C-alpha cells in the first residue's frame, strides 16, 4: 500500500517544486535571449577572431610545414599570394588587412597593395614579393600571421592589460607610449571610489535626517532627491555644464560671494566630473541606506542609551552595524554604475578623465574593433563580478535579500 502511495506522493512533490520554475520560465528565457546570450556572444569575440585564419588557409597550411620561426621559405610566400588573390576576388581582403593591422600597425596598406598585385599577375618568388613589399621580409609580419592563424587568441585580453606576446614568446609589456588601459582602469576605479565616498558622505546624513523627519516632510525631501532621478542623465549632465562652465552659475556665485578671486576651471576637469557624477549617483546610494534606516526601529537607539551607551557608542555599536547592509548595497550600486559611466565623462570630464566605457565605446563605434571592445568589457565585467563576490563574502551582504 505504502509502496504504491509513496511514488505518487513524490511525483506530486516534484510537480510542486517544478511549478515555480515553470512560472519563472518566461523571465528566464527573456533574460537569456535579451541579456545572457548577446553578452556571451559579444564577449566571445574577445578570444575568438577567425578573420586571419579564414583568409589564409593555404599560407597557414604551408607555415605548418615550414621550419621554425622568423621569415618562412618560398612555399609560404606563394601560398600567401594565392590566398590574397582569392580574398581579393571575394572582396574579403580588406577585412583581413584590417584585422592584421590591429596586430601590426601599418600592415594594412602593404597587404592591400600585395593583394592588388596578386590579382593582376602571378607572384613569382619570395625575393620579388619582399622587394615589392619590404614588410614581408620582416619577422614581425610573420609573427603576426602565425598568431592570427590561431582562431582563439589571447591578444585582445592581453592588450586590455597593456601586455603582449614578445618575439621571444613570453608575455611582456607593450611600449610605454601604447600603454593606456591599465591606467584607464585605475582611473575608472579611482573616480568610482571618490564618487562613491562623496555620495556616501552626502547620503548618510541625509538618509538619517529623512528617517527622523515627520513622514510628510520626509516625503518632500525624498521627492527633491528623486526629482533629478526622473530626468534623463543627458539632461542632468547638460545642466551641469551650464552650472560648471567658466562663465557659468557656480563661478558667478563664487565670485559674487568673494570666495574665489578668479574663475575656476570646473568644466573639462576631474573636479567637475566628480561633482556631476556625485549628483547623478546620489539617489542610488541614498535609497538603499534610507530603506534600511527606516527598517531600524527608533527604539534600538533608545534601548542602547537606556542600557548605558553614550550616543556615539549607541550609533557605532548598535545603529551602524544594522544600517551597514544598506550602506554597502548603496555604495556597491553606485560604484558599479560609476564603472560604466560614459556620457558624463564625455561632456564634463577633461581629456584625462575618460573612463573605460569611453574607450569601449570608441572601439565599438569608431574603430570597429569589437574584439578589443569585448576584451575591455570582459575585464570590466569580471572585475565588477569579483567586487560583488568579495562584498558578499566578506561583509555577508546579500543583495538578493535587500528587497
Amino acid at each position, binding site marked *: 500500500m505504502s509502496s504504491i502511495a509513496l511514488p505518487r506522493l513524490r511525483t506530486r512533490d516534484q510537480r510542486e517544486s517544478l511549478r515555480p520554475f515553470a512560472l519563472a520560465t518566461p523571465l528566464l528565457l527573456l533574460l537569456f535571449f535579451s541579456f545572457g546570450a548577446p553578452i556571451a556572444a559579444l564577449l566571445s569575440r574577445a578570444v575568438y577572431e577567425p578573420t586571419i585564419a579564414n583568409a589564409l588557409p593555404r599560407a597557414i597550411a604551408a607555415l605548418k610545414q615550414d621550419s621554425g620561426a622568423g621569415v618562412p621559405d618560398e612555399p609560404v610566400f606563394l601560398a600567401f599570394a594565392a590566398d590574397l588573390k582569392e580574398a581579393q576576388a571575394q*572582396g*574579403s581582403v*580588406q*577585412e583581413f*588587412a*584590417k584585422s592584421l*593591422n*590591429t596586430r601590426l*600597425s*601599418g*600592415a*594594412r*596598406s602593404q597587404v592591400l597593395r600585395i593583394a592588388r598585385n596578386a590579382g593582376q599577375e602571378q607572384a613569382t618568388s619570395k625575393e620579388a614579393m619582399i622587394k615589392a613589399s619590404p614588410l614581408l621580409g620582416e619577422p614581425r609580419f610573420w609573427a603576426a600571421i602565425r598568431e592570427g592563424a590561431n582562431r582563439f587568441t589571447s591578444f585582445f585580453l592581453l592588450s586590455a592589460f597593456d601586455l603582449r606576446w614578445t618575439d621571444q614568446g613570453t608575455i611582456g609589456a607593450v611600449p610605454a*607610449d*601604447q*600603454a*593606456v588601459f591599465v*591606467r*584607464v582602469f585605475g*582611473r575608472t576605479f579611482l573616480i568610482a571610489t571618490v564618487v562613491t565616498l562623496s555620495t556616501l558622505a552626502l547620503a548618510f546624513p541625509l538618509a538619517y535626517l529623512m528617517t527622523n523627519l515627520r513622514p510628510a516632510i520626509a516625503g518632500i525631501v525624498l521627492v527633491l532627491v528623486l526629482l533629478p532621478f526622473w530626468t534623463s542623465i543627458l539632461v542632468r549632465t547638460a545642466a551641469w555644464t551650464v552650472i560648471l*562652465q*567658466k*562663465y*557659468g552659475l557656480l563661478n558667478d556665485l563664487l565670485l559674487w560671494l568673494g570666495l574665489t578671486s578668479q574663475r575656476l*576651471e570646473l*568644466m*573639462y576637469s576631474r573636479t567637475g566630473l566628480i561633482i556631476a557624477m556625485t549628483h547623478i549617483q546620489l539617489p542610488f546610494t541614498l535609497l538603499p541606506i534610507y530603506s534600511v534606516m527606516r527598517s531600524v526601529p527608533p527604539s534600538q537607539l533608545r534601548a542602547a542609551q537606556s542600557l548605558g551607551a553614550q550616543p556615539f557608542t549607541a550609533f557605532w555599536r548598535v545603529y551602524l552595524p544594522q544600517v551597514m547592509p544598506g550602506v554597502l548595497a548603496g555604495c556597491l550600486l553606485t560604484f558599479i554604475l560609476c564603472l560604466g559611466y560614459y556620457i558624463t565623462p*564625455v561632456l564634463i570630464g*577633461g*581629456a*584625462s578623465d*575618460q573612463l573605460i566605457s569611453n*574607450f569601449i565605446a*570608441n572601439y*565599438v*563605434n*569608431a*574603430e*570597429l*574593433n*569589437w574584439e578589443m571592445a569585448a576584451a575591455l568589457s570582459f575585464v570590466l565585467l569580471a572585475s565588477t563580478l569579483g567586487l560583488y563576490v568579495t562584498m558578499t563574502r566578506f561583509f555577508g551582504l546579500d543583495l538578493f535579500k535587500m528587497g
Partner: protein
Amino acid sequence: MNGLRRTTLLGLAGAALIFQPQTAGAEELTVMATGGAWQAALHQAWFEPFAKKTGIKFNEQEYTGELGKIKAMVETGNVPIDLVTVETSTVLQGCDAGVLIHLDYSKIADRSKFLPGTALDCGVGIDVYGDVLAYDTTVLKEAPTSVLDIFDTKKFPGKRAMRKAPAQNLEWALMADGVPIADVYKVLGTPEGVDRAFNKLDTIKNDIVWWDAGAQPPQLLASKEVVMTTAWNGRIQSAIDHDNRPFAIVWNDQIVEYDMIAIPKGAKNLDLAYKYLAYAAEPEVSAQLGRYIPYGPVLADATPFVPKDVLPKLPTAPDHMKTYLVGDVEFWGDNGEDLVKRFNAWLAQ
C-alpha cells in the same frame, strides 16, 4: 486547430509588419546623416529637389557618424538604410570591415571628374570642408594669421580647444614644428615623426580643452571657455551668419577634408540609391549645397554653378588656399588605430 494556426500566422504577420516597416509600395529611400545644420542643408540642397523630381520619397534619419551602428545593422542582416553620410577615414574603415559596398561608378558618374581623393571604392565625396581655426574678435585683440598660431601660447594666452582625435592635430603639430607641408605624412609615418608631433602638442597640452562634436567649437567660443578653437568652417560660418556671433575664421594652414556618402552592405533599395548618387553627381546639383552651408563641391565642373556670394566663404576659395594640407585618408587607414591608442595614452599621462 486550423483556426488556431491561422490566428498564429496572422499574429506573426502582424509582428512582421511591426518589425519590418518597409514594405513594398511607393518608392522610398532611407538616408542616414549626421544631423544638425549640415543635414538641414543636405535636405534643402539635394534631398527635397530629388524627391520632387523623381517622386521618390525620402526618409531621413540621424546618427552620430560612428560606423558601429551600421556594422551592427550589417551583422544582424537587417539594414533599414540605403545611404549613409560618412567622413573620409570612416569610408575606409567601413570598406575594410565589409560594412560598405564597393561602388559601381558606371552607375554614378565619370570617376575622373571628381577631385582627387573624393571618389573612393566605397564612398563618393559630396562636399569639401576645411579644418580651420576660429576665434572671437571681441576677445582676441590681435588676429591670428595661421591655424598654427594655436601653438603660440605667448602671443595668444588662454585656453584653446582642439578636436579630441589625433588626426589633424598631429599634422598641425608637425607643420608648426617646421615640417614642410609636402612632407607631413612622410614624417608622420616614422616613429620619430610621431614622437616629434606629440612633443609639439606637449607644449600646449595644459591649455587645451578637447571637443568631440562639431557643434561644440562655436559653443566654447560663445561661452568664452576658450580664446580660440579648431573647427569645421561651416559650423563657424553658420554661427556668424545665423547667430550674429563676432567670430572669425583663420584659413592659412587649413586641412582640407571631404564628406562622403556610401551605401551599406545589404541596403534594400540599391537601384534607387544609385539613382540618387548619379543625380547628386551632376555638376549643377553638386554646387547647390553651398547656398545653405559654405562647403564646396567635389566636382571640378561644378565651380561655375556655385553662387557668387558663397564662393569667398568656401574652403576652396583662392584666398583660402594659400597654404593648406589635404588630409591623407590612406595614412589614417593604416595608422589610425595605433595613433588613436597612442593619443589616448598621451592624453592620460
